[in-house]
């Protein structure tokens, strides 16, 4: 068999040092690269957030100049969205999808290598703009025209190039994931037998295929407007800046779900393990994920209630947005129903997963508040919006990624994460994150505008709390780095193949740490509905 000989042949002639990582086509190594890059970007974006919080610690211009503040808020958003959260989920997909469906590797291993190595290039270009004349992007991560065209710094073309590369990487990664899931499942594993992480990633990959071309289109139009005298977004030449917002959010809203659907898959894997029960409502989880993905295409203008939409459009987008609370509610209900009367134990992954459920729900509820069009005129562009999306992204998506790391680190490295460090990391993170973002609800409701380096005196107390919380959360992430380093150096309790007692899935049949090449022959898979334990 040709490809297997090749795979084994390459094991012997494997290059060493940096070339090994540059040329690797192994899904586990590429997964590790993705995860390490996203961890690095998490700290880069986090440092920018702390610069923002340091400036906002007290009213007045205290720490940085406003021009730099604008670059920090913008780059923090771009780096966290495209550099930290998305690559982290792609890294988890690389590591987990093949071992969860019993495949020897991703369907297109070389393309996989290319997808990854585009990213360091993209973010080097993006970060280099900070050192250019006129500074880096300063128009917010949503880069609304004409702020990002007519009034943009000269480095904007580099920003566009970086975004194009990151977008191509996402598209290629999505093609690879779809091809892997649809073709490389072990015999007898039907679609409705797949673990939910695989399901949520399949749907996420389709979202990426659908909306990344829209992002590519919109930044290309910006590039043409800036450099080639077109007027897509320039009213003077017959264009329309509002068109930019429609196109951006047609990409941007599905993008929000790209950053949360895989998290749903992770939580759906961890909660049953530590509740020692089957996941409640597997099929409804799949349908709920698909409904959220479909609805994400018809809600984009809820980001634009204040641009002057006609009343009928505001009502349509208000109701369609609220409709999303239904499938999301189904998911939260199913997790709680899984916990109900389970034999729950509170290992580290479970702590993060439970915190996710509570905190993500808080973010979801403030989302319902923002969906109310008339109320949104008050909340729009205030810290209430900042509180909302950080609650779904940090105590939501980031906690899910951390939960996944604690859950699968024994499989990746062969040792359990250090419990003392992990517990300290968990509790400091929970306290820090809520101290940072909960007061923002109040400053936002009181009218504090976002993206401004100064604020009125009455917001001072809330901002002191947020800044203290921000530094606490940021510093406590260093504990996570310590946990990862200890695991990577194999310092800690050795993990057996079945690292968690109640865990189900093909990956737990593999030894811990998982060898470089696994499932060269497809494993025996017994679908749950035929499983002897069910009768």
């Amino acid at each position, binding site marked *: 068999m040709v490809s297997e000989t090749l795979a084994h042949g390459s094991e012997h002639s494997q290059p060493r040092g940096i070339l090994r990582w540059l040329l690797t086509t192994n899904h586990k190594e590429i997964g590790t690269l993705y995860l390490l890059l996203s961890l690095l970007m998490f700290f880069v974006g986090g440092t920018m957030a702390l610069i923002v919080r340091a400036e906002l610690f007290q009213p007045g211009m205290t720490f940085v100049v406003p021009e730099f503040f604008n670059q920090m808020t913008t780059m923090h958003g771009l780096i966290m969205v495209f550099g930290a959260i998305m690559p982290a989920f792609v890294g988890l997909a690389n590591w987990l999808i093949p071992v969860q469906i019993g495949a020897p590797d991703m369907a297109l291993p070389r393309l996989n290598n290319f997808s990854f190595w585009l990213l360091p290039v993209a973010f080097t270009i993006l970060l280099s703009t900070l050192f250019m004349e006129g500074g880096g992007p300063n128009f917010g991560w949503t880069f609304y025209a004409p702020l990002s065209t007519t009034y943009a710094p000269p480095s904007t073309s580099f920003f566009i190039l970086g975004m194009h590369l990151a977008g191509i990487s996402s598209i290629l990664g999505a093609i690879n994931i779809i*091809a892997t899931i649809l073709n490389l499942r072990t015999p007898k594993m039907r679609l409705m037998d797949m673990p939910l992480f695989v399901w949520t990633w399949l749907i996420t990959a389709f979202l990426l*295929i*659908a909306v990344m071309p829209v992002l590519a289109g919109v930044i290309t139009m910006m590039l043409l407007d800036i450099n080639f005298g077109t007027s897509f977004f320039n009213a*003077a030449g017959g264009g329309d800046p509002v068109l930019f917002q429609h196109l951006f959010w047609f990409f941007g809203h599905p993008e929000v779900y790209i950053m949360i659907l895989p998290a749903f898959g992770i939580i759906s894997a961890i909660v049953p393990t530590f509740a020692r029960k089957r996941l409640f409502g597997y099929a409804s989880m799949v349908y709920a994920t698909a409904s959220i993905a479909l609805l994400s295409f018809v809600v984009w203008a809820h980001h634009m209630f204040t641009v002057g939409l006609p009343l009928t459009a505001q009502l349509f987008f208000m109701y369609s947005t609220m409709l999303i609370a239904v499938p999301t509610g189904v998911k939260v209900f199913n997790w709680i129903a899984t916990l109900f009367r389970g034999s729950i134990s509170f290992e580290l992954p479970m702590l993060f997963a439970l915190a996710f459920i509570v905190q993500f729900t808080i973010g979801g509820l403030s989302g319902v508040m923002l969906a109310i069009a008339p109320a949104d005129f008050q909340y729009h562009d205030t810290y209430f919006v900042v509180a909302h999306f950080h609650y779904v992204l940090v105590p939501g998506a980031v906690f899910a990624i951390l939960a996944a790391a604690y859950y699968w680190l024994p499989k990746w490295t062969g040792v359990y994460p250090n419990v003392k460090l992990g517990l300290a990391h968990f509790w400091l993170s929970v306290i820090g994150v809520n101290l940072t973002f909960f007061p923002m609800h109040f400053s936002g409701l009181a009218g504090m505008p976002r993206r401004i380096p100064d604020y009125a005196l009455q917001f001072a107390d809330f901002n002191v709390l947020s800044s203290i919380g921000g530094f606490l959360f940021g510093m406590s992430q260093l504990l996570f780095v310590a946990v990862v380093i200890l695991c990577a150096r194999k310092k800690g309790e050795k993990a057996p193949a079945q690292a968690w007692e109640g865990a189900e899935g093909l990956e737990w049949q593999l030894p811990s740490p998982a060898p470089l090449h696994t499932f060269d022959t497809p494993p025996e898979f017994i679908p749950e509905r035929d499983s002897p334990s069910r009768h």
Partner: protein
Amino acid sequence: MNSQQQQQTNQGVARTVRRTLVALLLMVGFTLALIPLYDVFCEVTGLNGKTADTAQVVGGQAVDTSRRIEVQFVTRTSPGLPWHLEAEKKTVWVHPGEVTLAHFTFSNTGSERNSGRAVPSISPSEGARHFRKMECFCFQKQWLDAGEQSEMPLVFQVDPGLPQSVNKLTLAYTLYPQGQVTGGTYEYK
């Protein structure tokens, strides 16, 4: 896996990749189509407040003296054109169906001859399709010498079909330089 199964898998992967690429190209096409679609949508519904850019004939409807509509004129310049535009009267009251004349003064405050165009926009946007212009300086570009002033007429009619909920229309004219569409004059230190 034997080689036959391997071949089948490879064919399946190739098929999936082909289909995904087709979906990707369709989405690229959809994005490009959105731009003209957006313009058509706005033209049909008048949602972005843009009025017709050619002269319209006087509608034959009777003047509806039971309603009075306040028409406000707002003018503004954009960067890159040292012009000034002023309405003779900031506000006029009209009956729907009535043909009204308004005067505007263009002045070039710069030191050289150049061309510009006033682009109109109506708010609320529900009124955009009911504001008919018989004659307007906004249909073509203007040339002004340095320091020159020029008075231009606007002849308009508010269509009696204007929704009952609208009793005030704001007509905003923005002056744009012609021939230089990217207007970016923002300087970085």
